[in-house]
């Protein structure tokens, strides 16, 4: 009796403490939001950035955010943004969506409430798509540096843009590589059941069939899985000419390793999500079987690319994973739009983004009516001796 009473007291006390914390936290957040708003009205231009900063895609999320911060720092060092007789500093508010669609909408609302002028992000298509509705309702321009799913810009929103090629182009490039270069007649396809992975390989499947090859098996996993032995064993029995995976590097890496361990010698083809240094690290001995594509030019081969890579490495102490150059450009596109609009009004900025004509680090940036990058490029890479070797670029 005595002990249960004591526990009841303890429970009530801890509940009270939790409540108190929640209230205090709530206040703190409200204050943040307030200062954000006043900041935008003062002499700060607040730009949101959303990417997963925890979980399996954290390294890619950090990469994107670093790209955006590098751009903001450069703009500020060069004197900031002058509108009329006022000078503004660019500030990036970075949020973590954990690569989770639900979390993505929560942080989108948080950024809208904090008074951002525009948003760079999100990283994953699965998170960008549900969030785009929130940005649309608030007239906030959303420029994704890495969401390639076709559906993202297919919703008819005036606020939705991306600075990479979409998966229609990428899926076609992957399928072309399979049937034209590798001369594959039979194809096995695996996806991770995300908007990105599934959307990408759906297009690959379609194009591969148009080229007369057969999809002999279509398998599924999920974006948190670590064991692929069962589906790979099944694929091994069907002896495909090539295995195509739609998913991110944290699953593609272990999968490639298990491909090697099961003695499967079939070449692998992956999309941009698995075209990273992290993939090579995780895949170990299986990495060399991979050929992968990236949306965009091979940045290291572009005129300003090498210089950017050096600056990035010097500032953050790690090499570019994949899409940092694109989030970097996205910030510049927003600032360029603000300059042309001559105001921080969200609708005016969004309208200015739509008419972007900007020579960026990653190439010439202009958007079509949907918000897709005009004339987007896809680059093919082959993994060799622990490096991503550039093969070709198509448009």
């Amino acid at each position, binding site marked *: 009796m005595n002990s249960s009473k004591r526990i009841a007291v303890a429970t009530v006390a801890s509940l009270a403490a939790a409540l108190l914390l929640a209230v205090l936290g709530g206040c703190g957040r409200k204050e943040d939001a307030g200062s954000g708003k006043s900041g935008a009205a003062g002499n700060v231009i607040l730009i949101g950035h959303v990417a997963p900063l925890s979980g399996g895609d954290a390294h890619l999320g950090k990469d994107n955010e670093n790209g955006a911060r590098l751009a903001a720092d450069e703009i500020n060092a060069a004197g900031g943004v002058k509108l009329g007789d006022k000078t503004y500093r660019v500030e990036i508010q970075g949020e973590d969506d954990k690569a989770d669609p639900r979390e993505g909408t929560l942080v989108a609302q948080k950024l809208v409430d904090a008074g951002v002028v525009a948003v760079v992000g999100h990283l994953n298509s699965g998170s960008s798509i549900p969030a785009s509705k929130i940005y649309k309702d608030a007239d906030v321009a959303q420029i994704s540096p890495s969401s390639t799913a076709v559906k993202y810009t297919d919703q008819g929103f005036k606020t939705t843009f991306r600075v990479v090629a979409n998966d229609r182009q990428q899926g076609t490039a992957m399928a072309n590589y399979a049937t034209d270069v590798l001369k594959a007649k039979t194809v096995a396809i695996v996806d991770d059941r995300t908007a990105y992975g599934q959307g990408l390989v759906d297009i690959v499947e379609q194009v591969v069939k148009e080229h007369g090859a057969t999809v002999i098996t279509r398998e599924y996993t999920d974006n948190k899985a670590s064991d692929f032995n069962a589906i790979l064993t099944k694929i*091994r029995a069907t002896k495909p000419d090539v295995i195509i995976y739609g998913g991110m590097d944290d699953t593609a890496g272990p999968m490639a390793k298990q491909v090697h361990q099961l003695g499967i010698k079939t070449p692998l083809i992956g999309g941009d999500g698995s075209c990273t240094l992290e993939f090579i690290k995780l895949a*170990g001995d299986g990495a060399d079987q991979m050929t992968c594509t990236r949306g965009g030019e091979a940045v290291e081969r572009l005129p300003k690319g090498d210089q950017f890579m050096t600056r990035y490495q010097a500032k953050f102490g790690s090499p570019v994973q994949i899409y940092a150059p694109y989030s970097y450009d996205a910030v510049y596109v927003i600032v360029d739009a603000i300059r042309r609009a001559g105001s921080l009004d969200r609708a005016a900025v969004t309208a200015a983004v739509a008419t972007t004509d900007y020579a960026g680090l990653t190439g010439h940036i202009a958007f079509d009516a949907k918000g897709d990058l005009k004339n987007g490029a896809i680059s093919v890479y082959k993994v060799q001796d622990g490096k991503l070797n550039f093969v070709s670029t198509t448009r």
Partner: protein
Amino acid sequence: MGSFDTFLQQIFNGLVLGSLYALIALGYTMVYGIVNLINFAHGDVLMVGALTALSAITLTHAAVPGLPGWGLMIVGMLAAIAVCIVLSLLIERVAYRPLRNAPRLAPLITAIGVSILLQTVAMIIWGRNHLTYPQLLPADPIAIGPATVTATKLAVIALSTVIMIGLLVLVQRTRLGRAMRATAENPRVAGLMGVNPNAVIAATFAIGAALAAVAGVMYAAVYSVAHFYMGFIPGLKAFTAAVLGGIGNIPGAMLGGILLGLIEALGAGYIDQLTGGVFGSNYQDVFAFIVLCAVLILRPSGLLGERVADRA
């Protein structure tokens, strides 16, 4: 490659996965058997084990560069076991013992809290990124008859078999095992018979933690990644395995683990043939849980479960 070869390979895949599930499930079931607590922090103890071993391996490799892979593996495993035992004893003492006579929901919620705490602390210590586990045993495929295996996977099966036999001997044949069984039966009466329940419960937590540490190191070695939330999925699966086998029952956890591994592998491999292409490998988890539901409907106490009346 014939379809029978593929079948054997799937069985082997299932056994590797199942042995890992079984080792983890043992930790759940032993603790439940003695204190009726579902220790939801168990999966995170596994994670701490895997990450501790990774740090120990990295440090040892730097200090003694010549040590072969299996030597590093043993060093890592010993470090993981030591840290996990201390951690688990600490958790038991701080988070569970004060609540031992509380309503059963209280320790359950504490367990979830401990789980979140461990993940956050691990994230602070080891960072958020996926860490690559070094290849300690050769990873090249070895063809044994029709199946393709690796040294690491063989080690997983061998080590878990030895550990499970050892555990059965410990529980059935030793003084400590008898004390554990007596405490599980009735802690008060066991106390009257001269058994120190606190010591026995602590020993149970320690054994469970050691098993989780070994499982964690092997899990990370097989899949060659480790990260701060890696304990969640195997923890959940192992809990399922423990329920499948009959929670509280030690051979049940072993059986449940192996079965769940086999069901997952065969489910992913054959579900579309069984259903005429209606369901694909995307339903592999559904398949596993359908089996679980069926078992629980037909045998509410699990396959080898018993004494549900005074447990529920």
